[in-house]
């Protein structure tokens, strides 16, 4: 039987996290507009094969925890005109997050 390796889940719901900044040459799923911003873990969505590996012929292992991260719109866009409580929920893999 094959063992499927997964990174340990590091962030509980409610944890403050910062999205890492980077533009690696390979495929990645972390949009530029959230990079460097701080948010809060809304929920763990599960652990999934790492798409950065899959996209280049890899096995996607170790699997990465995927979090739904909540960011405040007024933090993302300084001139945001809506309700100051409006938020953005975005799915981010654990290796793109660091403690904030």
């Amino acid at each position, binding site marked *: 039987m094959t063992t499927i390796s997964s990174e340990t889940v590091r962030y509980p719901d409610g944890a403050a996290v910062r999205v890492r900044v980077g533009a690696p040459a390979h495929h990645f*799923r*972390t*949009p530029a*507009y959230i990079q460097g911003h701080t948010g809060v873990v809304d929920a763990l*969505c*599960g652990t*999934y094969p790492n*798409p950065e590996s899959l996209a280049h012929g890899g096995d996607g292992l170790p699997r990465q925890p*995927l979090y*739904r991260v*909540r960011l405040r*719109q007024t933090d*993302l*866009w300084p001139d*945001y*005109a*809506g*309700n100051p*409580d*409006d*938020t*953005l*929920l*975005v*799915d*981010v*893999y654990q290796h793109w997050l660091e403690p904030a």
Partner: protein
Amino acid sequence: MTATHVEDHVHDQPMSEVALRSVAIEALLADKGLLTADQVQQQVNLMDGRTPADGARVVARAWTDAAFKARLLADSRSALAEMGISIPAETPHLAVVENTDDLHHLVVCTLCSCYPRMLLGRPPDWYKSLAYRARAVSDPRGVMAEFGTTLPTDTRVDVLDSTADMRYLVLPCRPAGTEGMSEEELAGLVTRDSMIGVTRLSD
């Protein structure tokens, strides 16, 4: 190269560069034994078999059956199976998010065009446009206004950017004055755009 799928692409005009590339990639995948033409065709058929009417039926059931709604929000795959809607294991996880009077959801994929295809079919062209993808995250209320829905300022907006392995479907608010309607009649009220979140049905 297998003939079947290529024939689907035959038109009077020459094929676009993108279409040619897609055919070439499909042929390569088949030659390398990674994917068969049958598998590709099955996926195309699966996609073509899904339409917003599927999502509408699910929404109407959730409006009329609170226990079903709770199961749908907690674990969409098994709840949808109850309705005879199968979500293949290899497709991304589908999460249903519920609108209320105080909270509105709007779905976008800023990186490409991820979309709850298993309940809505293929996305509309505007959903894939750079304009929608850029503006949905930075000005969701402005985008909604262009679709004809002005959201009260005190209703919070949560924009969902489906960048990864999750797909999102919005469960719209049930419009007022529909208490006497059957599930089928209710399903007829539910629009594709309300399940993406660019409109609200109650307006």
